[in-house]
């Protein structure tokens, strides 16, 4: 409330899936990047995440850059309600509208300034915390002509918000200048048995992210040649990489077994012959004589 108010103007840009990694970047430079990098891009529906961390009270003021005069600045308000009460203004979003050469309009550089809770509101919020009730917010569905067709409402159990202060996280889904939906809640987890915990500081720290629609991946298109070429190339090249052993192990192992078997048999055979011949000492010559010719015949 009466704390020192520091004017902070930081634009933090992150990738879509990692808003946690804060990194400093000069905003002017970024704008130029967008201007020149994306102007005339065929695709208006690109994701453009922006995240601002606003100090609780003061509006984040920034120096206007003369380049941006063609862009118009707009503001739209955030309303809140405690339980089933009526909605009352709670803060203001300000952003720039960028008009593309093909007529599409998108919001950039969203920033948010949250009004502080009045005493009345603080009391209401405490009641919500005690009864584990809903804290509801709403946004206009069209930022150019609020409220548009209807209000976008979102709500969260009040007990999810208090941490050190009050932490809130907005993900605003946009389609041109229309707000489709807002995911509102605590920036972290809110495990189920929600315990009553009063915030130490009655000030909000808000994180806001703008989200546009993603492009769906296209069905892969193969032309016949590529498919054929890849398949043919891939399968021909691969076999030589394998070693001789890897290729023929299934033949080598049985072969080895057979050899081993043969060796053991060969080892046994002479012994048998020796042992068998010992008792009949007189006959070997006859046997040798008998065998002689036949083996000779075989050799021929």
């Amino acid at each position, binding site marked *: 409330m009466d704390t020192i108010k520091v004017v902070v103007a930081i634009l933090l840009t992150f990738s879509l*899936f990692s808003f946690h990694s804060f990194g400093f970047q000069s905003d002017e430079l970024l704008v130029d990047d967008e201007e020149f990098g994306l102007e005339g891009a065929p695709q208006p*529906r690109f994701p453009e995440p922006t995240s601002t961390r606003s100090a609780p009270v003061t509006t984040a003021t920034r120096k206007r850059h003369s380049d941006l005069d063609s862009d118009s600045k707009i503001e739209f308000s955030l309303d809140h309600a405690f339980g*089933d009460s009526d909605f009352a203004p709670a803060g203001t979003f300000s952003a720039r509208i960028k008009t593309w050469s093909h007529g599409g309009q998108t919001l950039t550089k969203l920033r948010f300034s949250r009004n502080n809770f009045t005493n009345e509101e603080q009391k209401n919020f405490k009641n919500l915390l005690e009864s*584990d009730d*809903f804290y*509801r917010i709403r946004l206009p*569905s*069209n930022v150019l002509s609020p409220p*548009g*067709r*209807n*209000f*976008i*409402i*979102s*709500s*969260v*159990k009040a007990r*999810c918000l208090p941490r050190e202060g009050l932490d809130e*996280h907005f*993900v605003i*889904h946009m*389609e*041109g200048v*229309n*707000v*489709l*939906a807002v*995911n*509102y*809640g*605590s*920036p*972290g*987890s*809110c*495990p*189920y*048995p*929600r315990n009553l915990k009063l915030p130490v500081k009655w000030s909000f720290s808000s994180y806001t992210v703008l*989200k546009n*629609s*993603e*492009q*769906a*991946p*296209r*069905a*892969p*298109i*193969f032309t016949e040649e590529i498919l054929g070429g*890849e398949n043919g190339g*891939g399968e021909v090249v691969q*076999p030589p990489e*394998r070693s001789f052993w*890897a*290729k023929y192990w*299934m033949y080598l192992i049985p072969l080895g077994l057979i050899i081993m078997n043969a060796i053991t048999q060969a080892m046994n055979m002479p012994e048998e012959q020796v042992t068998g011949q010992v008792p009949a000492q007189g006959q070997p010559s006859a046997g040798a004589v008998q065998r002689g010719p036949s083996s000779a015949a075989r050799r021929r």
Partner: protein
Amino acid sequence: MAITYAVLLFLIFYSFQPTLSLYEDQVGLTDWHQQYIGKVKQAVFHTHKTGRKRVVVSTEDNVIATLDLRHGEIFWRHVLGHNDVVDGIDIALGKYVITLSSEGRILRAWNLPDGQMVWESSLHGPKHSKSLLLMTNVIIEKDNVVVIFSNGRLHAVSCIDGEVLWNKDFEAESLEVQKVIQPPGSNFVYVVGFAASSQFEMYQINATNGELLKHESEAFSGRFSGEVSLVSSETLVALDSTGLILLRISFHEGKISIQQTPISDLVEDSPGPAVIIPSSIMGLFTIKINAVTIFIRVIGKGKLEVVEKANHETAVGDALSLSEGQQAFALVQHAGRDIHLTVKLAHDWGGDLLKESIKMDQQRGLVHKVFINNYVRTDGSYGFRALIVMEDHSLLLLQQGTIVWSREDGLASIIDVTTSELPVERAGVSVAKVELNLFEWLKGHMLKLKGTLMLATPEDIAAIQYMRLKSSEKSKMTRDHNGFRKLLIALTRAGKLFALHTGDGRIVWSRLLQSLHKSEACQHPIGLNLSPWQVPHHHALDENPSVLVVGRCGPSSDALGILSFIDSYTGKELSSSRLVHSVAQVIPLPYTDSTEQRLHLLIDADKHAHLYPETPEAISIFRREFSNIYWYSVEDENGIIKGYALKSKCNGNVDDKFCFDARELWSIVLPSESEKIIATVTRKMNEAVHTQAKLIAADQDVMYKYVSRNLLFVATVAPKASGEIGSVTPEESWLVVYLIDTVTGCVLHRMTHHGSQGPVEAVFSENWVVYHYFNLRAHRYEMSVIEIYDQSRADNKDVWKLVVGKHNLTSPISSYSRSEVVTKSQSYFFTHSLKAIAVTSTAKGITSKQLLMGTIGDQVLALDKRFLDPRRSVNPTQAEREEGIIPLTDSLPIIPQSYITHNIRVEGLRGIITVAAKLESTTLVFAHGLDLFFTHFAPSRTYDSLTEDFSCALLLITIVALVAAIFVTWLLSQRKELQDKWR
């Protein structure tokens, strides 16, 4: 390495294909197919020729069929498109069926014996009008002529080839043609109608060349109401718009005279305006005042006389010409449990040609339509047969005082289906009627054994097959071990409930719901929803399960609701109630009370929630879970999705403690200029998910599935592109898909498909959604998959954390935590357009999933979910291949063996329902449209049971033989040893 690789690949491919195929002799073993045609609108008999007697019918489901008059079987049947409504049918030349359809734009001729289309001609005209078909006996150049009035133009078409011989426009702006009449024996036709509803117009036209012979008109001081009855070839009867004055319009020889007769002159105590029942009976017409049917005869020069007032429900058939100048017509009257069929001569009210009384099943309701046909009896007199259409849409043929056959055509229009378990088999309760005796059992096994050993003769094989098909096992009325036997309970459009046995598809019971019966208070009752109400587990032996039917009085969502509770085993209506509120949504809650009745929340049109059953116990259970109940509504015409929670008791009516107010928690407003909701899908409530984790073998990683019951898939298209495919260019059409958490309204994922359009068919299961749409740029259908994974639990893959217990896997998941999800998606081309899509569901969710797609050809095609894996890549690594990832292709394969309907077509397919059996490997699949089809389906083969043709006898015999062999060899070896020792 090479061989393992090859074997692996072989196994991968081998594992999908034969899982689905079916051998010839397995057809009909677990599947059944029933053919229906829907509620008959018009029937034409064809009985003059010798040969098979048949009747040609057209139905409200746009079916043209010929039925066998002896048995009621379908000879042939054609299902026209859903926007090709049949306006009229007739038989020409004794061999062609002529049909006029599609608001009188298409005239077709079908060959009567086999149903081949002979010709088709399209008729166009200057303006929209009533469509009338008239068979003439005029012959132009040897061609029989059929005269059609449609779209403000009169056409004469040749019956031989469908060539338009002449046509004549009726340009007059306000002319509403009512009848086209050909007086007998003449060669001109009268076209009569009303202009500006206060002027009667008569055109006389030469039927041979379309020349206008005469045109007369006569103004009437009042206004005509729509319908007319023809009482002679030159006299009409109509009513004025107040319904109090009868108008007899005669145009004899071109002179029009209108004679007015107040109804109060004929009927003394006429309580209200009358309605004319259009007919064309000589000298007789019928009007209806409230529930009273009054028959009025036209005598001579304009004298009207009431011949009968019938207080019972009466149906009147059209006239049938018997002989020269003689006409007969039929009327059916209800008298208690019987119906009286009377055939009378048109000119002689007193003389009944036929009077029969037939006992009628009360569950068929009232007679809606009657068509008669005559035949010559053996004694030379006329006999009559009558085809009647009942309130439950069934079709019956009556002849000689009995019902010759009946068809349950109500089953062609199923609204909702649920299943119920059968009774538990009890000791002492005999099921002997279907039990086999021991001898037959043995004989069966011997036959099977013979079959296995290939010793069976062809007769034996036939006997085996017959035995398998007629197996008493599958049609028993008790619960089985595998959970294959169930009751399919189906609610039809006619408000009738059928219970079908899954074993053979027979109707176990059927009930025409009295609560969905038309009454004073409820003029147009319709059934909405069917859900299991009470499923007893604790008292399964002595309590019957019951189902809840929710309906409402009228098509608008603010009409009052109707509840009806029906016993699932007997079909008895346990209780029913008229609600004092409307029903917009029915939400079965996951809580049951002590009698195991499921709590239901009915949301009315004013967003109040009403709790059922209305018991104090239900309230106390409900109070406990009060803050955990959320629901959502989709207003697709506004493009707004809203989420609600309960707030408090209703303010308005103090005494109703079962009524609760809702509070709006979130809303999503889609810009109306760029998006229009065309499809919303959620997960099935009772789906079992086996594991939360998905192992990614490639990088030794674990991903956690985002398994939430509160996910909603929404598909929107550009409003311009919501029409037919091809009506817009790719640049101005897009398809946006959303995944929305229905508790918090968080959009978890949003993705745009440029150049695509609907219709979208989608299915949601576990953590993935598969949807089908048309890609305008590629000129092809596409199917996309989105898988959604939970990142917030991704840190739990450390084994040490699991061992020490420092993981958050067991903590409850709250939708209010910020969701950190990762989605993966991929699109593939698909050849077919789809009518329905479903996914197999098994008892524990272990078996891999297959998608079941109802193709445009009315078949059900199974496709392994692995083909729709977003992780497929062109060259999967070794590890990925082992995991079962299929190399990336641009289109999804259609494997001919994977049609689970094999060669059968489920005509007019509308829905596919999968029910888990107790056996983990098997899903029961029920596809319904005009036809019904049921089968067992095992997505990964029946790995947990022996196949049906496994021969236990063979196994036993083998064991016995082995034991015997062991014994014998033991004896032999002992003897040998003994001999050796003696040596």
